[in-house]
């Protein structure tokens, strides 16, 4: 029988793509390009929101109904990709958004809707704490479990439940962010 390749924790082949995106983001911030900052902030935020909502409210319930081997197979293929995709989307959205706010004078306390900007800090702060404390560690831990010769399905289920649940929470909070952002932009 063919031996299956071990689960990759970090998809190394995708790192050049990440490097290009980060370099373009740095260039956009350095050049204060209004269009590029808008692009990174809007495109990053949109994809991040959609991905979180998809994971939390669509894929999560489907995953819960799959058989354990099917769950393990899906997890093996999905999680390494998310290790890179989610942090890149978050960095794109937040870095471009902060620079855009600076550029537009929204960070200044004299800005008429400054309270909305502060509200967005609070929402992002809560999302960041959830993502750093629960979501990302669960993502890494499930990959370590899958690399074992005999992964424990109970551990995988526990970690995946945590991952999907926290992705759903951050997705729901993104709706709050969308309300704040559209309020600021209108």
């Amino acid at each position, binding site marked *: 029988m063919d031996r299956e390749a071990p689960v990759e924790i970090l998809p190394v082949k995708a790192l050049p793509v990440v490097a290009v995106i980060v370099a373009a983001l740095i260039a956009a911030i350095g050049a204060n390009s209004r269009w590029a900052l808008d692009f990174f902030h809007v495109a990053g935020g949109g994809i991040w929101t959609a991905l979180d909502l998809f994971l939390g409210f669509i894929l999560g319930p489907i995953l819960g109904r799959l058989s354990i081997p099917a769950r393990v197979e899906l997890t093996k293929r999905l999680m390494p990709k998310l290790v890179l995709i989610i942090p890149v989307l978050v960095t794109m959205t937040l870095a471009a958004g902060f620079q855009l706010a600076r550029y537009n004078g929204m*960070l200044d306390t004299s800005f008429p809707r400054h309270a909305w900007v502060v509200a967005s800090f*609070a929402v992002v*702060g809560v999302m960041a704490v959830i993502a750093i404390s629960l979501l990302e560690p669960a993502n890494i*831990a499930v990959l370590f*479990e899958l690399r074992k010769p005999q992964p424990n*399905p109970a*551990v995988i289920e*526990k970690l995946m439940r945590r991952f999907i649940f926290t992705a759903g929470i951050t997705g729901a909070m993104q709706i709050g962010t969308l309300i704040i952002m559209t309020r600021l932009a209108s």
Partner: protein
Amino acid sequence: MIAPEQKAWADRKVPPVTGLWMLSLALIAGGVSYLAAYLPKRAPLGPAVGLLAASAIVLGVGVVLLAGQRDFAWRRFRQVAGWTFLAYIVIAGMIEYAFIYDHTHGAVLIVMTLMLFVFMLAPPLLVGFTVARFQRTS
């Protein structure tokens, strides 16, 4: 089908360090949001220092609780936390550079740098712990 011993291993009791370190990060996020809300003016530093001190204490309590664990995969913890720490040194370095580039100085810079230091420690501990708690020591 999940065997009862597999479920028992997944659900075994561990010190509540995830909650503590999460609280530590939340206090830092609160402090940074507080300081940022006053930009470009300077915020009164008292509340920010209070949040920083509370965050550092909660982080320390978590470390002490974890340090008392005998049946814990310390090698795996050090490996994962070490690599994550390396990544966060780079992240924190870039953020510190941005503080200095933006002419942050004096007491505000000291408070922000200390907040950044706590921020740099908590995620590696969280990732290392979450991975190591499910590893067998023997």
